[in-house]
């Protein structure tokens, strides 16, 4: 007997799920809103439009649209009515200016096209070169989130109404008038605040989001001056840094240039750099010897060093070498520390005093004026505000509602101040809590001056007409003081008698005759700093891209991968593999390769942060955690809002480290946007390296030439060739040399490339799918405890050997390698392109022609360097990628000489061919040869240490020629014999063994 079988559609049907019953009756559970789009029956029956009419309309509109599409569009060309004298359409102008936002300082040159700033590079001065954040600041100018005019309680208000109201209320204010700013290094602004102060009895409070209070106070006590010193790393033979990430974001100046100046192996001498730190920082990854320690142990080692140098103790094993080297390099050494504690900094001062470094590697006479914030004054201000003693508060260059650890107290205090004014450029966390927002101008729209050291002033000049109805803070203060002088006139009058105005503006800086500060000799009571910290310890840091978070709404910076973790669009707890294992935390790759990780609840004192992702970081000291500041903005704009978590609340007692921190694994997993999923080189020699001593013995050490066995004997790869060679002797032969010893991994080149070449931002989700579009990346490799040699010695099998080689050491050596298109002269990509969209140039470049490309992606598949990027989408004018290229304002940053690529084409580094062509044309027009360093790429022009050199290898006078011919020179994956135009130079560490 046959039995009628019954098939379930699913387990839920068997279980008699009511939803399944419902679905059986009706395919759509919710009623389809037919009426909404067909209107009610009455309307429908009364309408005179029949079905036939509808078809007629449809036909007509289709035909009309087709016909309309046939016509060539009429393009208007609208010239100036009165052309500004200095503008020639299509020709860039460069202006010298200065960047200072309280956290970074740089002398810069701004490139403008038709009155729009589009690119920033360093003004070739020894003082300071721009980092990634400074170069990216050109995009922040075009932030559509910026305020379009003055605001009162969230409503637009005219400037004159605002001024009248503010002036009247300031005159009748009860309580103090306080001006809260970042560190003011502008002498005119200082003068204007003083003038304003005379009228209203003003208190001026300076507040640094990233505080260096400890150092300032220590110097006050040690030398009688509340300043931070100027360092001369180029004169230091031994550098010992206790956690200070001086190649990253420590203090406001970049020190890479002088650091690298004393690390040139050719000179036969390199500084020895010791880094004793908790998190793996840029400085740590560049150090010759890195000692990972807990923050508390760092202090104990510091005290041990102090005692040993004083002869009161014997050196701890960890710092034995340091003590020996320091003692033998007196006056030529430097000890620095990142701590924000006065006692610790006094001890550091004492150590440097013992070593005789003052006046040699540390200059207190011409100090750096970039940080002068006073946290005690800020604390007092918040107290006064809550006590109702403050009548008016004017804020400029600060965002305390975000950057203060106890922002709640500040916000509560704000409510008790009768007149609150912010001059932020956008509705940030603080501006949303104040009555008036009188938007300041972006620095690229502003006039200004900046005195970074007493003997030098730098000038800020506008490079674009103000985009919005904004007003410089200086001018606002002048207006409120009843002074109707324009700030420009004020500035000019102030400086005209002191410097040559026009030439100083042109140069960007002017020297001032300033006597060195009078200092008392070191005299301070050195107290013990020994620490008895317990449990897990946390060290907060500034990420290389986001910094203090003021530019969090800048998509270039958000998508700039951290040089160490290689992740972007996030902050996370960095943790060592051991500590992660102890706490049951892990990271893993999901099926598409992207990195996921566990999340934790983080408890620091009374502060609890939920759902913080954990990233396993080789080199992180065991028992410690790291977390980047600057994330978790809530009112930065569409890009930066809600990216990561805000770590400022963890800055307890002005200290960036905490102990007895608790983590607790919570449900869920977090997806990281990581652009490099492998950690080690797996035994390949992508980065060739050696030590200084070996190099001095044999300049070719670490750079063993590769030879193949052939029937003609052993031959170098370039002697075995299937292909016909190009004629590279005639004309130019553009080569790029990258000195891996000088590369600190600072990311400036990556963001400069982004800016110059209209590289799109793709967002976190796309980065996770490995669809990031960076033309230039900086690969970071860790060393592993397992090497081929060890495996051979110990007889470890291939499988377990390679598995072990994948795992980086607990405290690995780190090496950075910028990788862009290698411009192979036997390019694997060129031979597989079915439409000849990628072709070779006689000048040694591999061209990519977007308009020919049909998107087969064969080239990317065949590229051994993985430098080709495919446009999976239109990244411009696409709401799915709502970044700068999706709004008219943001598009103003685009370089008009470079195509904005469309969907479905491949793109890659062009070696900035538009810049090469311009250089060539300039020379042709002048009828001369191209001189050395005239030809530049965006990356080479941005490199603060000169690690990237570009030029014509057919011209003996070009420095790249020497680089290419140097003993240290090699090509990436040279066994492939692709004959690259990009050369690397072996990395040299200054180590004994």
């Amino acid at each position, binding site marked *: 007997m046959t039995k009628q079988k019954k098939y379930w559609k699913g387990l839920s049907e068997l279980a008699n799920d009511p939803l399944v019953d419902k679905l059986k009756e009706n395919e759509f559970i919710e009623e389809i809103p037919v009426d909404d789009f067909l209107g009610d029956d009455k309307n429908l029956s009364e309408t005179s439009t029949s079905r036939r009419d509808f078809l007629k309309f449809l036909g007509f509109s289709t035909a009309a649209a087709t016909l309309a599409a046939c016509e060539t569009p009429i393009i208007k060309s609208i010239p100036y009515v009165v052309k500004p004298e200095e503008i020639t359409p299509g020709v860039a102008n460069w202006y010298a200016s200065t960047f200072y936002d309280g956290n970074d300082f740089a002398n810069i040159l701004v490139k403008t096209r038709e009155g729009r700033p589009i690119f920033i590079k360093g003004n070739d001065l020894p003082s300071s070169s721009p980092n990634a954040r400074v170069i990216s600041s050109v995009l922040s100018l075009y932030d559509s989130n910026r305020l379009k005019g003055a605001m009162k309680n969230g409503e637009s208000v005219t400037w004159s109404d605002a001024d009248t109201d503010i002036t009247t209320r300031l005159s009748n204010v009860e309580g103090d008038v306080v001006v809260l700013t970042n560190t003011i290094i502008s002498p005119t602004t200082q003068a204007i605040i003083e003038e304003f102060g005379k009228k209203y009895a003003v208190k001026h409070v300076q507040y640094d989001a990233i505080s260096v209070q400890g150092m300032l106070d220590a110097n006050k006590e040690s030398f009688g001056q509340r300043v931070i010193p100027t360092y001369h790393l180029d004169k230091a033979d031994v550098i010992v840094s206790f956690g200070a990430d001086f190649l990253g974001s420590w203090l406001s100046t970049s020190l890479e240039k002088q650091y690298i100046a004393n690390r040139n192996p050719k000179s036969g001498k390199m500084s020895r750099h010791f880094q004793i730190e908790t998190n793996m920082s840029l400085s740590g990854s560049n150090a010759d010897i890195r000692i990972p320690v807990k923050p508390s142990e760092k202090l104990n080692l510091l005290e041990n060093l102090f005692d040993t140098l004083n002869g009161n103790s014997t050196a701890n094993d960890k710092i034995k070498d340091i003590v020996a080297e320091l003692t033998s390099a007196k006056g030529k050494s430097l000890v620095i520390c990142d701590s924000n504690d006065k006692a610790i900094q006094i001890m550091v001062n004492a150590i440097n005093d013992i070593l005789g470094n003052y006046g040699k590697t540390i200059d207190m006479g011409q100090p750096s004026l970039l940080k002068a914030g006073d946290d005690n004054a800020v604390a007092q201000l918040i107290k006064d505000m809550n006590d109702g003693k403050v009548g008016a508060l004017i804020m400029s260059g600060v965002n305390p509602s975000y950057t203060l650890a106890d922002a709640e107290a500040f916000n509560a205090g704000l409510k008790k101040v009768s007149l609150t004014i912010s001059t932020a450029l956008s509705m940030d966390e603080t501006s949303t809590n104040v009555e008036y927002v009188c938007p300041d101008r972006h620095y690229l729209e502003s006039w200004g001056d900046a005195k970074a050291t007493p003997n030098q002033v730098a000038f800020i000049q506008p490079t674009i007409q103000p985009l919005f109805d904004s007003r410089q803070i200086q001018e606002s203060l002048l207006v409120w003081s009843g002074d109707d002088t324009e700030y420009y006139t004020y500035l000019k009058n102030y400086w005209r008698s002191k410097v040559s105005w026009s030439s100083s503006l042109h140069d960007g800086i002017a020297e001032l005759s300033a006597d060195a500060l009078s200092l008392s000799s070191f005299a301070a009571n050195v107290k013990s700093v020994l620490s008895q910290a317990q449990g897990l310890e946390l060290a907060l840091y500034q990420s290389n891209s986001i910094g203090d978070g003021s530019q969090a709404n800048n998509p270039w910076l958000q998508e700039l991968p951290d040089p160490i973790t290689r992740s972007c669009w996030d902050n996370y707890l960095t943790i060592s593999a051991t500590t992660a294992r102890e706490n049951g935390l892990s990271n893993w790759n999901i099926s598409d390769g992207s990195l996921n990780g566990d999340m934790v609840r983080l408890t620091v004192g009374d502060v609890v942060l939920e759902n913080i992702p954990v990233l396993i970081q080789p080199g992180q000291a065991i028992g410690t955690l790291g977390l980047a500041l600057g994330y978790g903005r809530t009112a930065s704009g569409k890009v930066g809002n809600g990216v990561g978590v805000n770590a400022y609340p963890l800055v307890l007692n002005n200290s960036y480290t905490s102990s007895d921190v608790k983590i607790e694994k919570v449900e869920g997993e977090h997806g990281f946007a990581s652009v490099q999923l492998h950690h080690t080189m797996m035994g390949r020699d992508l980065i060739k390296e050696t030590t200084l001593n070996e190099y001095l013995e044999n300049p070719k050490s670490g750079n063993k030439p590769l030879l193949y066995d052939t029937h003609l004997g052993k031959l170098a790869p370039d002697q075995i060739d299937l292909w016909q060679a190009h004629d590279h002797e005639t004309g130019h032969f553009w080569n790029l040399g990258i000195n891996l010893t000088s590369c600190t991994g600072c990311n400036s080149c990556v963001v400069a490339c982004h800016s110059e070449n209209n590289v799109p931002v793709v967002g976190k989700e796309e980065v996770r799918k490995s669809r990031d579009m960076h033309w230039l990346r900086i690969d970071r490799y860790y060393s592993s405890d397992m090497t081929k040699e060890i495996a051979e010695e110990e007889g470890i099998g291939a499988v377990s050997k390679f598995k072990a080689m994948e795992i980086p050491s607990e405290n690995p050596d780190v090496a950075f390698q910028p990788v862009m298109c290698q411009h192979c002269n036997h390019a694997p990509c060129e031979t597989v392109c079915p439409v000849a969209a990628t072709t070779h140039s006689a000048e040694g470049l591999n*061209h990519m022609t977007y308009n020919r490309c049909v998107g087969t992606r064969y080239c990317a598949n065949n590229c051994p360097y993985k430098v080709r990027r495919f446009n999976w989408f239109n990244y411009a004018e696409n709401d799915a990628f709502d970044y700068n290229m999706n709004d008219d304002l943001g598009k103003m940053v685009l370089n008009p*000489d470079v195509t904005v690529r469309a969907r479905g084409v491949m793109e890659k580094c062009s070696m900035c061919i*538009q810049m090469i062509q311009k250089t060539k*044309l300039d020379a*042709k027009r002048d*009828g001369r040869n191209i001189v050395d360093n005239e030809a530049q790429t965006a990356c080479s022009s941005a490199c603060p240490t000169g690690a990237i050199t570009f030029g014509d290898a057919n011209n003996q006078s070009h420095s790249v020629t020497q680089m290419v011919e140097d003993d240290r020179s090699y090509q990436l994956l040279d066994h492939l014999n692709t004959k690259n135009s990009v050369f690397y130079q072996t990395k040299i560490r200054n180590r004994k063994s």
Partner: protein
Amino acid sequence: MLQLNYMFINMTKFINLSKYPFTIFSSLIILLFAVSASVSAQNIEEGEKLYKANCTACHQIDSKLIGPALRGVSDKYSEEWLIKWIKNSAEMIAAGDPDAIAIWEEYNKSPMTAFPYFSDDDVKNILAYIEQAPEKQAVVATTSVDGGAIVVEDQTSDYVILTIAIVLLLVIAGLWKIKNTLKEVAGEESEDLFSSIITLVNAFFARKSIVTLTVFIILGFGVNSAWNLMLGVGVTKGYAPEQPIAYSHKLHSGINGIDCNYCHHSARHGKSAAIPSANVCMNCHTYINEGPSGKAEIQKIYDAVGFDPEKGQYIQGYEQKPIKWVRIHNLPDHAYFNHSQHVVAGGLECQDCHGAIEEMEVVEQHAELTMGWCIDCHRQTEVKVADNDYYEEMHAKFKENHPGEAFNVEAIGGLECGKCHH
């Protein structure tokens, strides 16, 4: 292929202005030796030259410019007074001449430029010319006439084709009628038009080879014309849109001989030749407020910049309105072209690509601006290596490595994709 046999602008035209001193000098010599003092045709001609060289900046014959209209000036003032006035009006005003003061007051106390180097005869010649100067002719707007002409021409050709077609149909109908009549006469059964067509079509389809051939011919034509059609997509050679101002290159560049670079100066410096800004126009049109077509077109410049030609000054607080020209030469965004590369480094003349622009009343696109057109030129044009150190070493190396080959733009990478597409 690039046509090089365009009309060169005679370079001497560019330096017309600098030639004037010589003209004046030579005319003075002629006048010195002139036997007759009476006003001859020769003197009117001299007067015209002097007038155009010296007076037109401020005067017109029939209308007020910066100075008064000059027609009938000899009737108003005596010749002796005029000679004194033209040579040095300020002196007369200072001396308190009532007529002189009256004019001075009338024209906002702006003195007339003195011409002390004029001889009495020069002034007389000028006055003679003014008296006999031709009346201005009514000028019809040239552009609309030209545009209209083209339309009419098109219609004519259509009519011709239509007429021929009708005639041919009539002939066919007539012949068929005759054939039928003849058949009737011969006593055969006459067939109607429809059935005879059917017979013909059947005969055609009965022969497969003919059908195949026809299909192939039609297909061939079809493919060919489709190919040509597609090649022509986006090619706008001959595009000559109507511009917001009926600006004539023929008048400015051709007749008046103004150097192209005067207005399009950025062609020598940057990638864009750039349409000149209105302030460049005003360099001349501050004074010249009337052209052959009247005042209307020049007034459009004044409307843009805010200039009052009556008072001869700019209007304070005027909201300037940019002139929205229609762009004629449109390269796609993915193609990079640099004018200064071609004009300065390459030493090309504007006309090489833009045609005889100095003869164009309305500018039209002369070249196809297709990639084929670009690279044809790059293949054929030799690099101008003379006196340019940039090419010296490169050229020497090229001759060594590629003996006998031409050092043309292709040889220095002028066909490489990335040079223009980046």
